């Protein structure tokens, strides 16, 4: 029996990635990393800044996301995100830019706990891949 399912990543501008031979996806869900295998229960969750790992026959791919929603249903995983970058394509200076932006945002004082948490997360992730 095949253990593969379909994953689709869309951003507002286009369908970013469609793959139907995926064996496992790890997403940075809001309450912690979440691994999704075939026949997972239907779930909706949203993402915090982090790394999406996609494991398929052709190997592992990693993407950096800033936010998004995941929906898993009938072995279809949809990830909606407004900001996503392939880690293989992203270069150092781009990362530095993102980090600088995030740090600027974090230095603002007038933000609620949740957005503060998200920005801190973003900085952590960006530092770790830098």
């Amino acid at each position: 029996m095949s253990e593969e399912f379909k994953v689709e990543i869309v951003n507002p501008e286009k369908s970013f990635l469609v793959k139907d031979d995926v064996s496992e996806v790890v997403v940075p869900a809001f309450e912690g990393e979440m691994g999704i295998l075939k026949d997972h229960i239907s779930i909706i969750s949203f993402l915090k800044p982090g790394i999406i790992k996609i494991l398929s026959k052709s190997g592992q791919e990693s993407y950096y996301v800033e936010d998004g929603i995941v929906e898993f249903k009938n072995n279809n995983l949809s990830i909606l995100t407004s900001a996503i970058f392939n880690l293989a394509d992203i270069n150092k200076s781009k990362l530095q830019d993102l980090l600088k932006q995030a740090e600027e945002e974090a230095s603002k004082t007038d933000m609620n706990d949740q957005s503060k948490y998200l920005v801190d997360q973003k900085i952590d992730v960006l530092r770790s891949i830098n």
Partner: protein
Amino acid sequence: MASLDDLKKRIASVKSTQKITKAMKMVAAAKLRRAQENAEKGRPYSEKMNNVILNLSNGLSDKENAPKLLSGTGQEKTHLCVVMTSDRGLCGGFNSNIIKKAKSYFSKILDEGKELKIITVGSKGNDQLKRVYGDKIIKNISFKESKNANYFDADKVGKMVIEKFETGEFDVCTIFYNQFKNVITQIPQAQQIIPLNNEGEESNSDESYEFEPDEDEILSNLLPKNISTQIFKAMLENSASEQGSRMSAMDNATRNAGEMVDKLTIEYNRSRQAAITKELIEIISGAESL
């Protein structure tokens, strides 16, 4: 009757206008294709987003305490209208169709004694609205610098709308844009985005979902994003409509210019012939009298 020289000049000027409109038509056609592609590519995102929200709001156990973006503030006193138009002219009825739609909505609201606030996106709409509704316009946004509609711009508008909603500046928000049907037809749309009006739409799956964290939290995270997404969708539709509208307007203009050139050429030839005939008659009658 105009002299031969005048006619010649007019023909030349109409011809050069025709050249311009023809070029504009071709540019619009090329841009239209790209805009259309973008609009199609953007569709899955907004559809999926809509679907998820539908599933969520249907599964919401406590409808009373639903987020305000979904259920509204409970009153309908102040209306915010986001009128989305283009930054450039010469696109036929594109802008005036949106304005017409918006104006009829405005007068309806004002007749009901409600308060009206307007945000215009795109300078052409602002130009047309500020004469009558100048005091109602609270902000004018223009994305002249951005070549194509991009999500970043839409997000900026979306965030601003949400911020105003949270500070209680308005109760109901409606966006006005042109929906692209085909090159000749664009339908002006008024879409209410706050509170989200999806009653009557049935979710296509009756499967129950697991939520992590709970529904409320996901919804309150998702709804602001949905606002930006809807605005982005409107921007994409608008840019496709603008190019389509410009294309057909310029096509008409080119054709009209062609007809005008034909007419003027006939007139020119006729008066030239008349002048020659007159000269001939003069010569002949001069020769006869000798």
